């Protein structure tokens, strides 16, 4: 396993905290492709994936592209994960159909918006229906409120997806885990 070089990253603590825990679990599960539309909550995890030679990181123009990427990776024998924020889930509804139609195992990590002291109330309509939307799309959903639950829950989600059931799993990361009380840079 290649270790990314801390020195090449401006952010302190790249190899600590819950994003690094998630990264380690994705590595352990043999994830080779990670598609994402960036989110502040995923910033560190994205940096870790970008620095990893064994992971192909793909920046998507819309989250809707993600299901196609995951299916293509799976046809090529690779496992893929998607990173997005809750607003992105709404962009994916029809394209998620690929994953069920072809029984493609997949793990999606969703950082929540519009649920806890969000500075932007326009995030509430999508944020408040994100988990139900994922369930309607056929996903098993897990919600993580506290950092100490990351290891168990993300590992369990990966096991459900890749353990032979070919399931689609979404892991929602509560907004309390990421400070959204102010817009970035304020």
């Amino acid at each position, binding site marked *: 396993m290649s270790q990314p070089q801390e020195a090449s990253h401006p952010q302190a603590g790249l190899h600590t905290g819950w994003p690094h825990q998630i990264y380690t679990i994705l590595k352990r599960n043999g994830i080779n492709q990670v598609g994402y539309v960036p989110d502040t909550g995923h910033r560190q995890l994205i940096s870790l994936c970008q620095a990893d030679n064994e992971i*192909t990181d*793909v920046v998507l123009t819309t989250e809707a592209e993600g299901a*196609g990427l995951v299916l*293509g990776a799976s046809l*090529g024998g690779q496992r893929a994960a998607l990173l997005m924020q809750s607003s992105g889930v709404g962009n994916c509804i029809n394209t998620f*159909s690929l994953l069920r139609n072809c029984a493609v195992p997949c793990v999606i990590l969703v950082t929540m918006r519009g649920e806890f002291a969000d500075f932007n109330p326009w995030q509430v309509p999508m944020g408040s229906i994100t988990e139900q939307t994922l369930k309607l799309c056929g996903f098993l959903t897990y919600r993580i409120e506290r950092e100490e639950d990351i290891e168990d829950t993300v590992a369990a989600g990966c096991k459900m997806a890749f353990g032979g059931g070919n399931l689609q799993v979404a892991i929602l990361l509560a907004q309390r885990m990421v400070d959204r009380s102010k817009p970035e840079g304020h």
Partner: protein
Amino acid sequence: MFDRRPFVAGLLVDRGDLLVVTGLGSSTYDVAACGDHSLNFYLWSAMGTTAMVGLGLALARPDRRVAVITGDGDTLMGLGSLATIGVKQPGNLSIVVLDNRHYSATGMQPTATAAGIDLAGTAQACRFRRVERVTELSRAAAMRELLHTGQGPIFIHAQVEADDQKRIMPSRDGYAISRRFMQASGR
């Protein structure tokens, strides 16, 4: 402009281990008309994502050539994916767009390309390494060669006739066609 069926047939001559992904609708029927093949993957939902399936596959299989064969409607719905592909620069991926300027599955309503929206120009702007504008059927053999040996990402824009062709229906069982594909391609 030319007939799409002999063009697609020309692209798939001696296809060897070429991996083929088709967009839902007419392009699936065109590829199926050449004979079902275990290295074909047909999409039956999620219009707009065909190129992305090709990208995920091309990134996972750098040892193989991947050809996406799709239409203008599907490409327009996923226009952003041309940018996504341009960022990754997969050398083994080709996108073939059979542009008939119409939504042929739903009653031949005009697409944006009927108004002159330029998909080949879009691919060029998205840093496709090679962009071919095909207006003659006689170029099919050269395009077939590109699919097998050209440096990607390649974009082949084929200006085909807007006519209603016989619908050749391959399997719509996503589980079956995906597992068949994986097994036949060694995964």
